[in-house]
């Protein structure tokens, strides 16, 4: 027995070493960017002193601020749009189990397995083909199309764990199907919707490829603007904006991972009604 336990405990040294190196490799470049955004000299390799001058520059750069505001607007509208459409789709697909439903389900998942450049180029052709002027609106249309799949996948995951019996009960008590949906099913989806919303917001805010192909000239979404300055080289100012972008989306992703858990703990009374089915 002792021998067996010892064998179980022994960790494969090589795999552990690869894992440690992997984490170093993952975080080192990011931390370097963050560190040198506080450098008081232009150098990217010698840290000479702490300074907030690059951040100060950012907040006085009106073009950059306009891009930031544009990106926040794009992400907000796209999140709301894809939450509404994605949830409708998830509900419909979960309950319509016909062949037609499966085909629709497969088509809506296609954006997930299509390289973004293809989606971006196709959206550009569509918009210019029908004579839409490229602007923030076209970016939003493209981003919503791309994000619906994320919402649908997450909401369907949650729906699969919710029994239809409570909805049935509500119907027996005289609810119309729409009331049963609104009063019974939708509240159970809140944790999933919060998680999906935060995730989509972060993805859209950071998205470069789709925005690059579908944006107008002004205002440019933040990643598109940052990209054009990165192409010309490395600079402390980009370190500063990059640090802020990383921090912002990291917080959103952490919230997207953590909040649904916290919220579903709060709705545990509801789990009691559904017989504790998760």
């Amino acid at each position, binding site marked *: 027995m002792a021998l067996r336990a010892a064998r179980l405990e022994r960790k494969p040294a090589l795999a552990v070493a690869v894992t440690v190196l992997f984490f170093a490799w993952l975080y080192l470049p990011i931390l370097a*960017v963050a560190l*040198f955004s506080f450098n008081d000299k232009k150098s990217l390799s010698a840290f000479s002193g702490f300074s907030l001058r690059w951040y100060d520059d950012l907040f006085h750069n009106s073009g950059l601020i306009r891009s930031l505001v544009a990106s926040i607007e794009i992400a907000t509208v796209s999140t709301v749009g894809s939450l509404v459409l994605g949830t409708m*789709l998830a509900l419909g697909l979960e309950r319509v189990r016909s062949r037609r439903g499966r085909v629709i389900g497969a088509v809506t998942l296609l954006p997930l*397995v299509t*390289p973004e450049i293809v989606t971006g180029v196709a959206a550009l052709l569509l918009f210019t083909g029908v004579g839409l002027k490229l602007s923030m609106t076209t970016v939003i249309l493209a981003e919503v199309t791309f994000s619906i799949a994320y919402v649908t996948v997450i909401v369907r995951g949650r729906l699969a764990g919710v029994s239809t019996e409570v909805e049935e009960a509500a119907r027996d008590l005289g609810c119309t199907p729409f009331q049963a949906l609104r009063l019974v099913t939708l509240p159970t989806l809140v944790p999933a919707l919060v998680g999906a919303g935060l995730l989509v917001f972060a993805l859209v805010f950071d998205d470069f490829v789709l925005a690059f192909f579908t944006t107008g000239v002004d205002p440019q979404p933040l990643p598109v603007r*940052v990209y054009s300055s990165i192409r010309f080289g490395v600079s402390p100012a980009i370190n500063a904006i990059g640090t802020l972008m990383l921090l912002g989306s990291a917080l959103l992703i952490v919230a997207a991972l953590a909040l649904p858990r916290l919220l579903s703990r709060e709705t545990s009374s509801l789990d009691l009604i559904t017989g504790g089915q998760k």
Partner: protein
Amino acid sequence: MALAQPATKAEPDHTRSAQRTWLWGALLALPTAWMVTFFVSSMAIIVLLSFGRTTNDGYPAFALRTTNYRAIWNQVYFELFVRSLVYALATVAISVLIAYPVAYTIARHGGRYRHALIAAIVVPFFASYLIRMYAWKALLSDDGLVNSGLRRTGLSEGVTFLNTPGAVVGGLVYGFVVYMILPIYASLERLDGSLIEAGKDLYHGPVRTFFSVTLPATRPGLYGGVLLVFLPALGDFVSAQLLGGANTYMMGNLVQQQFAEGQNWPLGSALTVGMMAALTVLMVVYLRATATRAREA
């Protein structure tokens, strides 16, 4: 009364299910219309325009000619196509070599820190792809940390990392390896630990156990990861543009040039359709492989 009861009960059931079907159908209608309008039709337009032409004053126009597809068979494009495939395959191979040990260590030896460790991987990966590529570029640039470190220790006068295939493939791995880690981790977590124990009793060595028990059991996750890394890697243009140069350009760069710089949209469309065709072949191979496995099981 007793007779009437079943009848009244049956009737609402019938209308109820009809009502419900109507509701679910109505819920499906809007998103379906949206996807058809903005996704399906845009794909159709790209296929149509790939047979199109450029007018004398430089505008793309629909036509029915195969000029663009014949243009792809030009040697320069073909080289680029092969290079993209090689880079994407190298990215997949390196990702497997990194992701398997990482997923294995976390799933089997992570203990109660498992979820925290996975979150520590997921969070930076889903935060700004662009900034992570930039971070990589800053680190490897001629006056970046790596080179200044080399100079300070006197090991070397400095190495040119950027503009090399290694930098581009490294960037792709850095960008997409998480899509390999997650599915492998998921299948490892589902794997019953006593199976590995039994394997060790039967086959003795950990290496033989790995190849005869662990690897076959996690093959679906591995296949999924291969697909999820290969798809974005083949279409990427950011890594090659930021970390590489004209001699490391991939298909994505070519497509991007046709649309953003070269302005030959019909040719760009044909290149895109070609890329999609290559990916579709891969998807079909993947689906058939997993379907065969499911039948065997």
